[in-house]
């Protein structure tokens, strides 16, 4: 098996290395990828069409918003898949899984985490809301928010984190996130134009059609953040307890 692996790796590696002769030099501004029409359009016209300085968030949430919607659905399906494979409903009421001795980490870690956690959550909300002007956006802020709940589960024990963010609430959050995204697109459909065409929304949102696109991007990113938060915590709580959700790490 190892000989076969070595032969396969050498053949593929030689093919790829011989293909690097045709590549442009690294960092060339006149290369084919950087000089094409699509990227030139995105760089030059994003600010004037949508009034959003961060080009990556504008392309992700407005010009190619259909892809981002299905990316959110992929995360949701992964969360559901983990529950379908691992979740074990038999032993959740047995008295042998005693939750009283699940203290989490020691005194120093608990004290430090209780000081730090509110600031992590405020920073996560800031990253979601300022995705237009600084690096960030819905996905990054959602992962940080979910990670704050994972920190809570590690420091205080999983039962304490389950009181704040039970399994039912997690799934409701995940579904609400997807509904916000798809519902916003259907709202554009109801007002006359195509699915996810945000410029028709200037009749209900304040400002002209360019500001309507900027506001809609914020709403859509909030939807992504909801789903990602819920699924990150659900993935951790299922993987660390082998599906029983009783005692954490």
């Amino acid at each position, binding site marked *: 098996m190892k000989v076969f692996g070595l032969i396969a790796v050498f053949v593929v590696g030689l093919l790829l290395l011989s293909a690097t002769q045709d590549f442009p030099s690294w960092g060339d501004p006149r290369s084919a990828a950087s000089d094409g029409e699509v990227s030139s359009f995105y760089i030059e016209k994003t600010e004037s069409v949508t009034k959003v300085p961060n080009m990556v968030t504008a392309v992700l949430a407005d010009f190619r918003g259909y892809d981002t919607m299905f990316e959110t659905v992929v995360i949701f399906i992964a969360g559901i898949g983990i529950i379908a494979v691992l979740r074990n409903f038999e032993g959740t009421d047995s008295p042998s899984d005693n939750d009283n001795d699940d203290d989490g980490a020691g005194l120093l870690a608990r004290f430090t985490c209780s000081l730090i956690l509110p600031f992590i959550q405020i920073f996560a909300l800031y990253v979601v809301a300022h995705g237009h002007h600084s*690096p960030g956006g819905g996905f*990054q802020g959602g992962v940080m928010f*979910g990670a704050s709940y994972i920190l809570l589960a590690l420091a205080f024990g999983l039962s304490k984190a389950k009181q704040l963010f039970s399994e039912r609430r997690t799934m409701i959050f995940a579904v609400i996130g997807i509904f916000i995204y798809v519902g916003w697109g259907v709202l554009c459909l109801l007002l006359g134009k195509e699915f996810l065409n945000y410029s028709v929304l200037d009749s209900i949102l304040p400002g002209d059609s360019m500001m309507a696109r900027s506001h809609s991007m914020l709403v859509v990113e909030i939807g992504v953040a909801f789903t990602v938060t819920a699924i*990150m915590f659900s993935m*951790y709580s299922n993987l660390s307890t082998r599906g029983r959700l009783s005692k954490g790490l």
Partner: protein
Amino acid sequence: MIWQFDIIILIFLVVAAIVSLRLKDLLGASMVFGIYSFLICLLWAEMGAVDVAFTEAAVGAGVSTVIMIATVFSTTRRSKD
């Protein structure tokens, strides 16, 4: 676009990838995988891809390492190769 920084980080990256695959203790392998994710995040931040570096720092060096360590604790910790 400082080429000295790029070459040093790329060599560390190859070393981290090889070490992570050779360790027999799975907990150590997961931690070196976290180091690999963090070095890639530095490389992207230096190349000017700040959104991608932010995402990789949150996802790769955060959540991905934690769930791998959670799996290693639930199953065996020692591997035979």
